[in-house]
């Protein structure tokens, strides 16, 4: 067996042992101060033992702490403050113990002086603990930012093209996934990613990035290792980098690193990297990528209450909400054999701007009811197939400026309605199977309007 590093082995017990003096000494403080109340004076008899165990463990903590500090991965300034505070705590607690067992006394009032020592220990422990925490977790580990959003702190990327490649994309990834251990306060492997300069400088084993060669860079190599490998980063089961994040950093090392920090638009990444970046930025900012994809946001419609929907449900409408902001609906009015439900169309009045798709197929819809549908200003798809609507009825739909498709299969329409239909500027598809209207391009070759009549319409069919 080869003796490697006994000091580091013992040093690593510091974080464990350090909690003992904190507990024992705080207990002594509590006992001592509670003893100020005459009724509880008797509990002060436990103070000497608490102080003794606290002092002994504090000395142990000092020794192990010193051994750990030799490892050298810590910010020297914070470290020295922490060390001296720790040593003072041990000394003060030792003196306090001597006072408590009457070995030494400050004039005649040694009991009162012990109160002063107790308060001093409280301050010392708190301060030493704070600096110790800063060493392990970095400064700002406990911060109100976690609870409340700090508006100015995080740069909102509203326009991805304007984002700086390193500062706004690569750096936040590194901070988020690596910054906990590789910062100026806690330089694991003597590597800090706090600034571009310190990142370039590298760590204990030299540079971690080889400019232009991502796969030869230690940083990328470590990230791409098998997670079970001892050298895999981030270590200890901390959240790993995603495939997209790794790809972004690889691209940065390969092509962007040497020059100045460019805006994304100028860096012109390959399309897959760009998609990853947009995705990454989208997830990090309020303006998520889904809003750009969502065609619903350009539609304005008032909110719909659940009561109204429940009421329509009870009337037999099948309602699917297809957007929640704004509230947009896909409504079907089922037809029951022999009974027409068309009278119910007027019940849709309260949600008239919210209806995007409407299906009244198979109901005996009258021209007057079409006039009601004509007020559904956002309507995009309308199914009137197997209804008795006529050319006169189609004329009543002239205000549907958003209508994209209308299903008129097995209705009583004729070619005459094509003129009215081609006046509807958004209309793209008209289904006329089972009517005399044939497949044509009524608006000429350039028009978007398409008539789909099917092939079998010449055969008499029972719909």
């Amino acid at each position, binding site marked *: 067996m080869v003796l490697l590093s006994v000091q580091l082995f013992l040093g690593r017990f510091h974080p464990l042992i350090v909690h003992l003096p904190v507990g024992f000494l705080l207990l002594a403080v509590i006992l001592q101060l509670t003893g100020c109340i005459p009724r509880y004076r008797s509990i002060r008899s436990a103070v000497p033992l608490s102080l003794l165990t606290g002092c002994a463990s504090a000395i142990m903590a000092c020794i192990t702490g010193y051994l750990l500090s030799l490892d050298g991965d810590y910010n020297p300034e914070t470290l020295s403050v922490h060390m001296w505070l720790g040593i003072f705590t041990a000394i003060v607690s030792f003196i306090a113990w001597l006072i408590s067992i009457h070995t030494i006394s400050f004039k005649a009032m040694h009991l009162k002086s012990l109160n002063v020592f107790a308060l001093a220990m409280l301050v010392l422990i708190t301060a030493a603990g704070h600096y110790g925490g800063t060493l392990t977790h970095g400064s700002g580990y406990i911060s109100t930012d976690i609870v409340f959003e700090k508006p100015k702190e995080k740069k909102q990327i509203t326009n991805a093209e304007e984002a700086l490649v390193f500062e706004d994309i690569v750096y936040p990834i590194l901070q988020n996934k690596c910054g906990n251990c590789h910062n100026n306060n806690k330089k694991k492997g003597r590597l800090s990613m706090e600034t571009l300069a310190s990142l370039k400088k590298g760590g204990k084993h030299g540079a971690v990035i080889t400019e232009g060669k991502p796969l030869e860079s230690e940083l990328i190599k470590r990230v791409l290792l098998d997670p079970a490998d001892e050298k895999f980063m981030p270590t200890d089961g901390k959240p790993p980098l995603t495939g997209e994040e790794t790809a972004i950093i690889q691209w940065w090392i390969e092509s962007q690193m040497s020059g100045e920090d460019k805006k994304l638009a100028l860096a012109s990444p390959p399309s897959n990297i760009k998609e990853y970046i947009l995705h990454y930025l989208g997830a990090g900012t309020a303006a998520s990528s*889904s809003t750009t994809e969502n065609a619903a946001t350009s539609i304005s419609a008032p909110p719909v209450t659940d009561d109204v929907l429940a009421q329509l449900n009870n009337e037999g409408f099948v309602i699917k909400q297809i957007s929640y902001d704004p509230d947009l609906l896909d409504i079907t009015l089922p037809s029951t054999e022999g009974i027409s439900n068309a009278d119910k169309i007027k019940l849709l009045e309260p949600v008239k701007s919210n209806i995007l798709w409407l299906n009244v197929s198979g109901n005996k819809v009258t021209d007057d009811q079409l006039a009601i549908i004509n007020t559904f200003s956002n309507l995009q798809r309308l199914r009137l197939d197997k209804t008795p609507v006529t050319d006169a009825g189609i004329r009543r739909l002239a205000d549907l400026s958003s209508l994209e498709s209308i299903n008129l299969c097995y209705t009583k329409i004729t070619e005459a309605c094509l003129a009215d239909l081609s006046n509807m500027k958004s209309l793209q*598809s008209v289904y006329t199977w089972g009517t005399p209207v044939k497949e044509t391009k009524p608006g000429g070759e350039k028009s978007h309007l398409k008539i789909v009549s099917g*092939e079998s319409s010449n055969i008499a069919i029972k719909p």
Partner: protein
Amino acid sequence: MHDHHHEPPFDPMNRDLAQVKKQLDRRTFLTKTSLGLGAVALGTLLGRSSLFGKTNASATPLEEGVTNTVFPNYLPKAKRIVYLFQSGGPSQLELFDYKPGLEKYQAQDLPASIRGNQRLTGMSAEQSVFPVASSIFKFQQYGECKAWVSELMPYTAQVVDDLCFVKSMNTDAINHDPATTFFQSGNQIAGRPSIGAWLSYGLGSDNENLPTFIVLVSKNGSGQPLMARLWSNGFLPSRHQGVEFRSGKDPVLYLGNPEGYDGKDRRQMLDYLKNLNQLQADTYGDPEINTRISQYEMAYRMQTSVPEVTDMSNEPDWVYDMYGADSRDPGTFAANCLLARRLLEKDVKFVQLYHQGWDHHGGLPGGIKEQCRKTDQASAALVKDLKQRGLLEDTLVVWGGEFGRTVYSQGKLSADNYGRDHHPRCFTMWMAGAGVKPGFTYGETDDFGYNIVKDPVHVHDFHATLLHLFGIDHEKLVYRYQGRRFRLTDVSGHVVKDILT
């Protein structure tokens, strides 16, 4: 006294049961308070803008406490889908991926540079040579989009202007079971919910009288087996699983009343049963009890809805002519396509067809001809029929198998006979309808049809795109199970935006 003995609500009168109820109350309190906090935390994790934001009671298909996200996330293009699954792995080289240069290499060993490090199955890995086999079938361009289709698919060739071909599909699995399971559930190992179950879970039903997810399997299928777990709900509540209709004259058995029973008091009987089940559900909180309740109700409604939809007597002759002669024979692929159209007309969200027999390791020319004869006309007819009814604009049609086939011949290559082994690295699928570009071809393979050279589409990407068409962000449709969140696309998947309209 009660003149109507149905009136008093059921209540546990039994002392033991009351005791259990009491105990559970304390437990329920603890569970509910802790879960409640968990749900609030999860809500913020999932990025809701406000914690107690607006909820939409009218459309909450999701189970309580699972996620606060409501679907769809953005405006959908598709309302329903029919997936024509071609089990066994149809050869892309015989059907759609035309490789005119292959004849030059006929019977030559496939260059190692093309083969790369692709693993082979045990069936052909030991071959001493990998002779390139060009297709013996003729190809021709069709439609305005000039898509290449082989002579095996004369009917599909007529509708190419409505289809979107993806020639760069690729998968991770090389054998049937894992590959099929991967396609249907996003994972090679069984146990995850299938696509249909996820859609049912996320979007709910559009027609309460029929199951949301219906499965039709071509009858007398031989070849690679199909298991009910392919349409399973996995860990989702079991009412989201696919309901298989029998392939035959009577798709759902026992819908009629037995002899001597007129069914008049069935409603009453079911109400009683529901109360009893509800009692158990309240006591034990097992979601499977709720599933049982909803399935009894569904079965009751299906007594009228299923005979209506499966009664083909009102289909005119020309419809049968369009789908082909097989369509008069219930349970065939053609008859299932026709039934699928009728189900889609009733707003069934997901109709999943399976057709076996594409696994042509040997005797490929004869075998593939036979399968095309059984499927080509009906697949094309379904697209045409949906289109003329105006349904294609919000119905997605998907055609494809679990992987492709190798360019080299498995076994002996002769002038008119050869076989092809499994090939996961590239194969062709087509989609049509809702939100995908009509008359469009995406992705390219190399001159050997062995590697993808442009725009690869992985199975996860296919799933992400499919969910996208239904307005679902595939990263948001999640379900927590055994301590982690699960998605159909696992941890991958990109929406293939280039094929969207």
